[in-house]
């Protein structure tokens, strides 16, 4: 079942095109990795999906809700606020540098949104949070503050925070770029577990072997365009496009 559909997405900063017509779809339970050189628009694409950036052209539909469309004249039409809010909650986003709330305990970081956005009771939210902390291997950290945790632990808390809202799609924006190789392993393990549980995910990453491992499909982006798309074994082993070949050579 298709849950995300993106068509002809365009986005620029100060007249400089960053996304120049991106189209792709995502099925439920699918893990999609987006790879490509820095500045190719991978992060911007995630930020458009999660409404941190506004698009200039194109259509985005999520779980039957339309976030944005473009009419025949090329006018961009965003849906009304309440629909945008619903669409926003379909996505969870894990940031490169965690962005946990430093003044809140681990528990409150995770329960704040379920309580105040989804209007769950505190007890309900804490139960969900504890289950997630167990899953992340952080059951003894609920009273800790982010500054007392390692980078890997902080990132796992931020994954738990995103999961607590029970999103349809979990997006990762270079989740291991701020971590050393050892801590990177922790995070990749967690994402692998989620993949096994059929969590729908979009992962922007520079970890090629990891992308090959967990993805059902890989997109290679360069200069605001999708250059190549395919199953990981095809794209990594037999890249068709010359640009993809050149990029992947560096990782051999």
């Amino acid at each position, binding site marked *: 079942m298709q849950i995300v559909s993106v068509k002809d997405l365009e986005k620029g900063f100060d007249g400089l095109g960053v996304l120049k017509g991106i189209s792709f779809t995502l099925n439920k339970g699918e893990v999609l990795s987006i790879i490509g050189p820095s500045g190719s628009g991978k992060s911007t694409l995630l930020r458009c999906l*999660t*409404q*941190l950036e506004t698009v200039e052209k194109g259509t985005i539909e999520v779980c039957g809700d339309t976030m944005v469309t473009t009419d025949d004249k090329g006018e961009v039409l965003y849906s009304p606020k309440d629909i945008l*809010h619903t669409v*926003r*909650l379909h*996505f*969870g*986003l894990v*940031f490169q*540098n965690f*962005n*946990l*709330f*430093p*003044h809140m305990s681990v528990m409150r970081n995770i329960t*704040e*949104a379920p309580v*105040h*956005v989804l209007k769950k009771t505190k007890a309900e939210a804490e139960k969900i949070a504890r289950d997630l902390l167990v899953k992340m291997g952080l059951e003894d950290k609920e009273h800790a*503050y*982010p*500054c007392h945790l390692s980078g890997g632990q902080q990132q796992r808390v931020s994954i738990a*925070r*995103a999961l607590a*809202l029970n999103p349809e799609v979990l997006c990762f924006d270079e989740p291991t770029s701020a971590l050393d190789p050892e801590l990177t392993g922790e995070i990749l393990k967690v994402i692998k577990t989620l993949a096994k549980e059929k969590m729908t995910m979009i992962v922007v990453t520079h970890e090629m072997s990891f992308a090959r491992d967990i993805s059902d499909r890989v997109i290679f982006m360069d200069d605001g365009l999708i250059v190549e798309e395919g199953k990981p074994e095809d794209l990594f082993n037999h890249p068709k496009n010359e640009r993809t070949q050149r990029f992947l050579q560096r990782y051999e």
Partner: protein
Amino acid sequence: MVQLLLQMLEATLTSLRIFLLTLLFALPLGIFVARGRMAKNSIVSSLVNAYIMIMRGTPLILQLIFVYFAPYYIFGTSYDRFTAVIVAYVINYAAYFAEIYRGGIQSIPKGQFEASEVLGFSRIHTFTHVVTPQVIKRIIPAMGNEVITLVKDTALAQTIGVAELFRVAQNASARQFSTMPIFIAGVFYFVMNAFVAKSFDKLETKLNYYN
């Protein structure tokens, strides 16, 4: 001597009233001024900026005189001196507080706002539960400075004839041909500010549970 001290204590109460009332109104007013200063609307932000420039660019003593005497010259009516002091201090200190708040708000990493947005928090919730607690921690040292200055600035209220601590000490000095009362007043200010400094230290320690 005992009588002098009693007089000075009474005058200290006036100083404290100026101090507390100024904080009571200027602390919240500063939030609105800061928001105005950061407004996207350029008319609003430049008007607020002009107000801040005037408040910071002219002496408080002049503002005090203006606030008290301007209504007299414009409307021919005069009003309570103490009220004039509070009005002048509030609009002056709100400008300084606003700039401190603005510095604090702008020092919060963009990621905090983005995480709040992605989690679906309302703007108000983000402001009250995410931004403000972190801003408070960051601005405590600067606010401590400003609040200590306010304690000492209450001495300026005598300019328009409000009998606060320094005025009473000066009068006593003139009567007794001695500078002693003024030095005693100095001790009074020092003790009050020791309390202020201590309170800010405590607050800082209390918020040290995170980095």
